């Protein structure tokens, strides 16, 4: 490390991430001073606003926390809400929710890989120059994105702020021709997916390693756990969803409107990389093959490889979605399960007082929703812990290790490396600023 | 879904070329238009066309020139919204679409041989110009012609030069009034109704032709009736929202009447019992 380096990096309004964040790094005489990721998104006070609203509105409102993972928020919110009022969804509902979650992960990962990360790896400032230089890639990306969108449209009305997925089940269930259409979209997508894997294997990810604790859902069955399961970590932690607060250990730091989290060590990571590190055995065989091809052994400790992990998950999601659809094509969907909810004026779904937690693996990691409702199903308290919030602390620790290692490359390179690092986590800053600490008044 | 081309569809437009344009006031612009091969439009004074700009829309616009004018016809358009503003941006040589002419114009055959009292308020001068020009071209077929014109201010006056000419002609009685005076104006000030009592007319043999904004009609008709003009001798032109021009879209309907086909020109006797018409 060269000695008298001075560096002042301030990336304001970090681009190609969801929401507003700044990177601040101060190096004086070769030693690292400030090194932070500031979350500067305007707070929107969701958990405050939820008070007094019906539990049946929770998913509609919390879906609006974030446009990119709207289905994820919606699913976690529904899980928490149903837990709170003691409603048990049917197997069909659970399966279709899994399908929706696959779509969500697929959609978000594709957006991230192509629109947000690829420009860095291909050495351009954004997606638009690629239209000229890599037109086929761009078209493929948009086509895949559109497919994700189209299958979501069929299943829940639209991808951004899903319509028919609600507490209790679905207000509209797919018909025969809908299943057919989704099946066709997904099988058609395989070609593009193969080419994406091809492309990815030619990309060079920056080299950097920092082993950390990896947190995600775990389960005892053979399914790659995304919707259901307990909370687990690579350091051997295992806990019920209900105990999520012990795990996230949130603390506020002054520079950020997002809260930081830690578990067994100074920080932990959640997201595609963590999931792969915890559950790779359970991936669909085709996805496992892709992981192998990308050089995955038992664990990846390079955070830049989160993008590669996302790629593996894309393959898994496509294949498992096709499997779910085929199951229901055989068995048929029971349309009598369609629910009519609104504000539950027709009391289709029984309500009682309670406190419920939802924990769902969304694209960026584990997402917790927690509601406390009274006997009429009115929300008394709400809390939500976003994966990005959990990751921010880990990102800062990565940055602290990374900066000294590459300091001699000059400010421009360091800045780019940091931006790429932050982007690799696919942070969703809009989410992070929306829910912060909540004191549950007991 | 199958697709077929229709000949003679009512939605077909003819191409019209803008031969000349002139900004008349801040918000009114004049357009002289020729159809392909200078094909005559074949209209009666008082009829209107649907002017069309693909991508923007259509609007009904009165024909401002007499059928006696050869080769071209005139429009005068006030910029009030989406379509009219877009039209104002056009210049000489540009194309517009034309459907029509539509509706019933002024009953010139009936008017022939009679005295005419023409009352124009504001933009009402536009369709009336087609009648005035027609009358001038066939001056001998008509009796005494009186033109009364009402405008907001002298600046708002349309066809100013032509009006001056009417004024100078010995075979036309002309008066003009402004709602609001301006320092250079030394003539009448007030609404158009104030001019009517001063007109000397032979009610039995006079037809009054009135075009103006909706509120003008009530008051003018009252004055005309007071002058003993029979209600069959009062001719009006109405403005309504119109979409098709062929009496189907329903927008211009006044009770059982479709303004675009049954009008826009009516005798007061036809309208007086129709609530909502005036």
């Amino acid at each position, binding site marked *: 490390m060269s000695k008298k380096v001075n560096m002042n990096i301030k990336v304001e309004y970090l681009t190609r991430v969801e929401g507003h964040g700044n990177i601040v790094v101060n190096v004086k005489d070769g030693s690292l001073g400030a090194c932070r990721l500031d979350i500067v998104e305007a707070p929107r006070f969701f958990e405050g*606003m939820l008070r007094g609203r019906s539990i049946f509105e929770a998913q509609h409102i919390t879906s609006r926390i974030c446009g990119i993972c709207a289905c994820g928020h919606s699913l976690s919110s529904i899980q928490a809400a149903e837990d709170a009022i003691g409603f048990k969804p049917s197997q069909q509902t659970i399966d279709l929710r899994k399908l929706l979650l696959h779509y969500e992960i697929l959609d978000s990962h594709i*957006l991230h890989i192509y629109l947000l990360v690829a420009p860095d790896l291909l050495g351009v400032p954004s997606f638009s120059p690629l239209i000229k230089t890599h037109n086929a890639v761009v078209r493929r990306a948009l086509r895949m994105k559109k497919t994700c969108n189209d299958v979501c449209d069929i299943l829940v009305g639209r991808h951004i702020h899903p319509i028919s997925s609600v507490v209790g089940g679905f207000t509209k269930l797919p018909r025969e021709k809908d299943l057919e259409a989704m099946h066709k979209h997904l099988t058609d997508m395989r070609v593009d997916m193969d080419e994406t894997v091809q492309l990815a294997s030619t990309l060079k990810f920056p080299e950097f390693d920092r082993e950390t604790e990896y947190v995600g859902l775990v389960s005892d069955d053979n399914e790659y756990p995304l919707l259901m399961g307990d909370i687990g970590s690579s350091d051997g932690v295992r806990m019920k969803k209900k105990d999520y607060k012990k795990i996230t250990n949130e603390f506020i730091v002054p520079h950020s409107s997002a809260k930081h989290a830690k578990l067994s060590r100074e920080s932990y990571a959640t997201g595609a990389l963590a999931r792969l590190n915890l559950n790779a055995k359970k991936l669909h065989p085709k996805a496992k093959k892709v992981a192998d091809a990308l050089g995955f052994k038992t664990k990846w400790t390079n955070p830049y490889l989160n993008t590669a992990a996302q790629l593996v998950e894309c393959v898994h999601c496509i294949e498992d979605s096709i499997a779910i659809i085929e199951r229901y094509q055989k068995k048929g969907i029971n349309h009598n399960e369609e629910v009519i909810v609104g504000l539950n004026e027709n009391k289709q779904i029984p309500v009682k007082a309670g406190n419920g937690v939802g924990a769902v693996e969304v694209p960026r990691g584990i997402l917790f929703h927690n509601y406390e409702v009274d006997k009429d199903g009115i929300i008394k308290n709400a809390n939500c812990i976003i994966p990005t919030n959990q990751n921010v602390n880990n990102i800062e620790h990565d940055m602290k290790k990374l900066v000294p290692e590459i300091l001699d490359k000059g400010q421009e390179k360091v800045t780019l490396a940091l931006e790429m690092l932050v982007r690799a986590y696919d942070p969703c800053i809009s989410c992070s600023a929306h829910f912060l600490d909540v004191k549950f008044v007991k | 879904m199958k697709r077929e081309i229709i000949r003679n569809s009512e939605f077909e437009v003819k191409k019209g070329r803008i031969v000349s344009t002139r900004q008349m006031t801040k918000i009114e612009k004049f357009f002289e238009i020729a159809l392909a091969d200078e094909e005559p439009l074949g209209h009666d004074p008082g009829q209107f066309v649907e002017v069309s700009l693909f991508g923007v829309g259509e609007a009904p616009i009165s024909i401002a020139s007499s059928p006696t004018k050869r080769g071209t016809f005139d429009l005068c358009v006030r910029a009030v919204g989406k379509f009219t503003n877009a039209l104002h941006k056009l210049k000489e040589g540009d194309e517009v679409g034309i459907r029509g002419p539509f509706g019933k114009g002024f009953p010139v055959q009936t008017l022939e041989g009679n005295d005419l009292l023409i009352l124009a308020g504001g933009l009402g001068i536009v369709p009336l110009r087609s009648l005035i020009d027609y009358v001038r071209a066939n001056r001998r077929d008509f009796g005494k012609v009186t033109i009364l014109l009402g405008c907001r201010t002298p600046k708002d006056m349309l066809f100013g030069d032509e009006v001056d000419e009417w004024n100078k002609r010995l075979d036309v009685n002309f008066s003009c009034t402004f709602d609001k005076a301006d320092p250079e104006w030394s003539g009448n000030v007030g609404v158009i109704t104030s001019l009517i009592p001063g007109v000397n007319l032979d009610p039995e043999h006079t037809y009054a032709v009135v075009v103006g904004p909706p509120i003008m009609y009530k008051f003018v008709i009252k004055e005309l009736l007071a002058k003993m003009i029979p209600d069959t001798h009062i001719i009006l032109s109405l403005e309504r929202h119109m979409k098709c021009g062929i009496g189907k879209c329903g927008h211009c309907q006044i009770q059982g009447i479709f303004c675009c086909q049954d009008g826009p020109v009516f005798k007061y006797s036809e309208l007086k019992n129709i609530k909502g018409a005036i």
Partner: protein
Amino acid sequence: MNKPKVAFFDFACCEGCQLQVANLGEQLLDILGVIDVVEFREVMSEKWNKEYDVAIIEGSITTPHAVDRIKKIRKRSKVLIAYGSCATIGGINGMKNNFELDEIREHVYPDNAKHFPTIPTMAVDQVVKVDYYVNGCPIYPPEFLKVIKAVLKGIPYAVPDKAVCAECKLNENVCMYEKGVICLGPVTKAGCNSWCINNGNICYGCRGVVTNPQEQAQNDIMVKYKISLDLMLNKMNMYNKCREIDKDE
């Protein structure tokens, strides 16, 4: 003709409406063929320092800083589009205005409230002049295309001012009231092709209230279906709370 310079800006929002653009798929390339996107923080790093032909604003105005920022953007933009419910009517962020500002701030940031200056949520046109509106949470892509084309063509776009019910009927949905739940379709501006009802849900009013909601008739209906005023207001306040700011003035 030079391609117009278009910039996207986000204020307090979920950024979902921007994503709707990405969801257009390959059609997006057609749009990019006729406009020149010069700033779009979410997907590109480039910045632009000259005048914008078109600024597309997403999100509501919720902080003093945002007020300054939107005013600056307005000054630099020939045409300004309010994009999505948050920008056009305040949207979901307006629910904050149901509470005392200090109270909600302290509820959320018990110890750090002072770090988070906040003002009542406002729609963009409650701060600066807006030329075009694309309503909806999220925006309805076909309508967005219509608006973009109107902008490019230089002609106005009028948001439909009739009720969602009109479109709902055209889609032959069974009315939610017949199913025993309340729907805001009768008071909400159409233009979304009754998206939510087509998918079995109710209308939440995300496109804003029609100009003349026929209040007397609405009251009758509330009586008929035994809906309390509180419940109705509560539902209306989900998206349409910011309306009250105009009423006060």
